[in-house]
């Protein structure tokens, strides 16, 4: 019943965001804010995070906390690189999935069968992933092996043979490239929308499309199929599920193995972007994915938003570091908007009782917002370029800020992280 309203609200939110961003772009002249290049880069950077997050989502919806995503992702990258150079991209895809799934299987055995604390098992897998892959590299890629001939080293595999296809939207993003033309006009709003659309459709790797499709697919499977209902029930109340004849162990196994496979797929994606396995290329994305999932309230849509935010900030920072200063302006605008809303609420005739006589608290908050907006605006005016160190942490700081605002609405599956044993009601 509220779904429609939520959906509309989301649309309005996105529209408002585009307008604000567009405004900021026109004001500052930083065209990269909404260029198709930035959006494309954001997508590339967001996909592995989203895939890791999906891994987390599947596991945690089934009640298993998976902090071992990073380790599983590492396994995914290694196996993808190893199979990819020998048998091509499809083999890489399969091997990466299997590699990640094996990590998931290990986690499932430990947590589901043996009831080990989920965090411990995850930490162990994060140790094992890099250890095993390094070991495999030392054995299979060492000097004199055929792989080494093909360009492998201890820290990297040979290049994946063959390419994964890329697709573009005909007419709009390729050929006449209408969107590209629109984008280069730099018109208010028009260019922005064109840029975003073109970024999303121009020369997309097939795997990106696949990865993005996995989000709605996950939503469909988890919320609109019988299997999904059972899976979520294992995360909400496994004893209830058990009492209705659901095989909770099997559900959890499937979920956690799939979770590993998703993380592995994230690894495959990284390998495809780099064309090969490079030691350490996951760079903590397993953890970031987990954060994106919590950020997204254990839902695919929220997870997508979280990863997109991260990918966008990261892409912007890599593409044009000085653009990051516009976030100050953003912040100022958002705070002002908040102030306006607040004042409106306080002066509205039908205001709720607790706001009837605003207390010190309200005034302090509002004063804080005013000062904050002023400071941010001033920062935007005086700072041309941030030290690079601060630019690098933009995505992380943004995540923290958004969480500060939104965290209280989050709700995790009720039996998440609980060790479940058949026949032992909690």
């Amino acid at each position, binding site marked *: 019943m509220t779904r429609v309203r939520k959906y509309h609200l989301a649309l309005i939110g996105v529209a408002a965001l585009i307008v604000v961003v567009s405004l900021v772009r026109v004001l500052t002249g930083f065209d990269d804010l909404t260029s198709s290049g930035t959006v494309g880069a954001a997508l590339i950077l967001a996909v592995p995070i989203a895939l890791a997050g999906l891994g987390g989502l599947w596991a945690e919806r089934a009640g298993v906390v998976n902090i071992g995503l990073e380790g599983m992702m590492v396994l995914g990258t290694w196996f993808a690189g190893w199979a990819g150079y020998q048998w091509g991209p499809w083999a890489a895809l399969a091997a990466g999935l299997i590699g990640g799934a094996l990590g998931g299987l290990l986690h499932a055995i430990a947590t589901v069968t043996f009831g080990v604390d989920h965090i411990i098992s995850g930490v*162990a897998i994060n140790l094992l992933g890099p250890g095993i892959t390094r070991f495999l590299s030392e*054995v299979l890629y060492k000097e004199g092996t055929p792989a080494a001939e093909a360009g492998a080293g201890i820290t990297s595999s040979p290049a994946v043979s063959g390419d994964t296809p890329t697709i573009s939207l005909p007419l709009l993003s390729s050929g006449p490239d209408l969107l590209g033309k629109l984008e280069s006009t730099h018109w208010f709003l028009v260019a922005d929308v064109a840029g975003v659309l073109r970024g999303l459709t121009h020369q997309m790797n097939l795997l990106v499309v696949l990865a993005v499709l996995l989000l709605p697919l996950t939503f469909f499977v988890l919320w609109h199929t019988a299997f999904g209902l059972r899976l979520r029930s294992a995360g909400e109340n496994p004893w209830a599920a058990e009492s209705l004849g659901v095989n909770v162990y099997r559900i959890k196994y499937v979920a956690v193995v799939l979770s590993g496979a998703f993380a592995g797929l994230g690894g495959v994606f990284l390998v495809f972007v780099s064309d090969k396995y490079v030691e350490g290329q996951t760079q*903590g994305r397993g953890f970031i994915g987990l954060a994106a999932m919590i950020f997204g309230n254990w839902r695919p849509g929220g997870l997508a938003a979280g990863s997109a935010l991260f990918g966008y900030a990261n892409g912007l920072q890599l593409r044009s570091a000085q653009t990051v200063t516009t976030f100050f302006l953003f912040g100022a605008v958002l705070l002002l908007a908040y102030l306006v809303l607040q004042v409106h609420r306080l002066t509205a005739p039908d205001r709720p009782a607790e706001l009837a006589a605003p207390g010190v608290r309200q005034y302090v908050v509002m004063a804080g917002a005013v000062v904050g907006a002023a400071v941010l605006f001033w920062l935007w005016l005086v700072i041309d370029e941030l*030290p690079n160190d601060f630019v690098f*942490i933009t995505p992380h700081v943004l995540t*923290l800020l958004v969480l500060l605002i939104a965290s209280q609405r989050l709700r995790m599956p009720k039996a998440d992280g609980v060790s479940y044993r058949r026949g032992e009601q909690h």
Partner: protein
Amino acid sequence: MPAGLNRALLTVAGAAIAVVLAIAICSVAIVVAGGSPLDALVAFFDFGNSARAESNSVATFLNRAVPLFIAGLAVAVGFRMNLFNIGVEGQYRIAAICAAFVGSTFTAPAPIQIAVIILVAAAVGGLYALIPAVMKVTRGVNEVISTIMLNYIAIALSAYLLREPFAGERAEGQLNTTTPPLPDSGMFPDLNFVFEWFGMLPPTRNGGLWGFLLVAVVLGVVIWVVLERTRFGFNVKASGLNGPAAQASGVNPKKMIIAAMVLSGGIAGLIGLPEILGDRGAYTNNFTAGLGFLGIAVALLGRNKPVGIAFAALLFAFLDRAQGALQFADIPASVVTIIQGAIVLLVVVANEVTNRIALRIEERRAAQQLGRNTPVEVAA
């Protein structure tokens, strides 16, 4: 109590089996890699073939255990309360650079100098941990994410501090960035004399056996006392075992979160000091990273108890030390990481299994006892 003894024996047996299994798994890996597991085993116990090499190796082993132990303690304080402080990594980095810098700005008699450095480190670590604590308490932000994010922020922040405000002089042709060197009074005296007690050569390795080992031992004892004997420790335990019950008993959960997190961060702040005060005399850009994450494994392996953590830290350090020896024996050094991961996983699995076996034994015993005196005289 025989049941208790039974249980203890089972636990030890389980741990032993787990370690043996971990070794077996790695042996298979080594064989596959074309090496000999026996050589590997020898390498782990190969502390060098001269007296000097031996003492150096022993010092290396113990020196590695010190920060691991402190890291384990830091993590454990949070974990005992079900607070997942993944941010130990960032906390110790920020703390280390600030402490190293502050320590280099003045010169005082050694005890004062060192005390100030330790205090600064603990304070900075605690303050940095306060951020996620406050975020959790006031806005309900999950500490796992916030500390992960703060780890990244700490890396960038310390890089900035190291290059700009805290940068020290460096020699011509040196590319390492570093804070200004600590005065001599800032260096913690070593414990090399201990080696003489055992009739060994004092280690020549720089810094020898780090004196910070003593601080770590004292810290371990203090933390044990605090956690096991004080009201605060009781409240931590109660909050960890049953949050609602602790709250109903008058424990303020918000204050506890802040206190435990700050304590955890304060301890974390000390992780980098053994290296700085024992060896480097400054924070440099190749300061050892990653101890915070290893600390999680160490704490979990040590079951969040100081004594257990000490054993776990020694085990990890023992394995880490062999990295060089293994390479001399032509065995991939990554088996160390594999063994560490396998041990963590297998030991906890063994724990669960032995727990269950113990329960089953009790069950059988109870059944026997109750079987003799039939529960009720059937009427009707």
